């Protein structure tokens, strides 16, 4: 099957439907857990793996857990925590589509580009997205 063209508009549409992915760190954490669906780590190590500072990682983890995309047992007294990615068919397959697209270098950069534009729009008023860039992506689930 020929892959669909993934435009920034379509990326934005996916992000809207997923709702909780607003910061690049949210995306990178999701990508990490996409490759490591059951990870037992201390958050400092997780921060090193994804390359963000600890407060941002902590905030993004809370975002993903609150959105129900990630599970973390609450009763642990250990410094390390077990993180389990929820099945990707949650959210009607939108999350799966986004992660499959963002699992490539180009795809990730495209999503981060959209996220950064949104952040910038939010802080300085509305700015239209650059719709000229297009990328290939397999059809979403």
């Amino acid at each position, binding site marked *: 099957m020929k892959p669909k063209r993934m435009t920034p508009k379509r990326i934005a549409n996916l992000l809207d439907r997923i709702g909780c992915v607003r910061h690049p760190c949210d995306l990178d954490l999701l990508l990490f857990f*996409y*490759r*490591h*669906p*059951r*990870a*037992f*780590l*201390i958050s400092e*190590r997780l921060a090193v793996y994804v390359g963000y500072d600890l407060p941002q990682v902590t905030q993004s983890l809370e975002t993903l857990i609150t959105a129900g995309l990630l599970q973390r*047992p609450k009763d*642990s*007294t*250990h410094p*390390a925590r*077990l993180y389990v990615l929820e099945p990707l068919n949650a959210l009607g397959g939108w999350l799966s589509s986004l992660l499959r697209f963002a699992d490539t270098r180009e795809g990730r950069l495209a999503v981060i580009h959209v996220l950064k534009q949104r952040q910038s729009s939010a802080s300085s008023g509305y700015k239209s997205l650059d719709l000229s860039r297009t990328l290939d992506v397999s059809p979403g689930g």
Partner: protein
Amino acid sequence: MPEPDLVKTGIKGLDNVLFGGIPRGNIILVTGTAGTGKTTLGVEFVYRGAREFDEPGVIVLFEVAPDKLIRDAALFGWDLRELERDRRLKIVFTTRQVFQQELLQADSVLLAEAAEIGARRLFVDGLVRLGEPNGGEPREAFHLLAEGLHRENLTAMLALESTFADPAARAPEEFVADTILKLSIEPVQRAVLRSLEVVKSRGHEYALGRHSFRIVNGQGLEAYRRVQAPRSLQREVGAAFDATSRVATGIPGLDELVNGGYFVASATLVVGISGAGKSVMALQYIAEGARRGERSLMITLDEPPAQVLRNAQSIGIDLQSAIDKGLVHLWYEPPQEFEIDRHFAQIEAIVERFKPQRAVIDSLSTYGSSLGATERSFRDFFHAIVALMKEHQITAVYNHENPEMLGMSSMMGEFKVSSLVDNIILMNWVELGDTFRHALTVAKMRAMPTSRTTHECEIVNGQGMKVLTRPLAGALPVVPFASYLGLLSRAPERRASQVAGEAP
């Protein structure tokens, strides 16, 4: 004595090496350098457990991302995602530090995760020598880790990187582990050979020594028990001969020279230079079996099947028809990069499945050139083959190429195995005038009388070989030893007085 509760690995051939499996609850250390197959072994151990023995498992990874492990496992046909969905497998990614500290906790999250799916097996990939959290000895740290695993009665396999320059050196962890499987990969004449060794295994018996294994796409590991390893006692006593039955050779005139045929389950060596007629004899032996409705196995190393079929046709044998009827199994293995343990395991499997009554190996010299004559490998292999055939009451013929063109100073050259066989037939060329003519001598017939006279043979196109009758009128008179000088020096001369007094 109670039978040990053995955990079958499910890995092809490995449980045979382990005499059934590994005692439940053992801590298994898999050692080896990078690329030796530790991860594949460990993942297959857990996969087979979950898939074939209803024993869920947990895989712990430190460096390899789970999605890559799942991708690589798919190459072997192992669907790890399906097992995860069915709650028969969990793959946990963590760090060595977290793992080590975790298992020391009474309320270990990791072990709780394992218990949640009723895990019976655990594989930890990429362990390096452990450092004790408070600066203690690695051996003590590993002991604490083992205790944590014992609590849950998990049969745990831990892959440990070998980092020692000296292969004989032992990691402290090896003294604590219950079972140690050492994987190696070594160059053999520009190829490589994988081998595994059960260094120790508490609580049961196992086959000592280094056994070969392969990593086979679409399947996984295949271990082959060392060919030299002793087999069942049944194999050793298999040569209980039936002293009355004879197996016809298929060569006109030869049965008369071997008292009506070979003994059942006997081993016959046919020795001669290339072109002396060994393969023709072999084909006729197989064809005779087919004619009598007996199953025959022909193992050919020098000539591919199409060539063997053509050769058979040229002497009037329709081998293909016998194959189609299920009376002949023709098995060819090219001699390049022989893995002798695997080769022997394949022969064993064919023998057990096809149950031949006759067998031919053409030829032993090819094994010799692959295994080398100076080491014991060839002799051990041949001994194992002879024992296998005897156990299954197969009457076997082994061809061996002797490089000497005219005459023979030794039957087997540097391959000293003639004592292992029951019968030896020497095939020679005899130069008469300007022609090499075929000659056959029955040099040895164990437990049977033989005249050791040399007979002329003939190979006729479209008909094959036959032993020509020896006209009595032309035969030499049998003269007593007393008529000769120099018998022991192997240069006998007739005493002059005897020659002079002899009738012309």
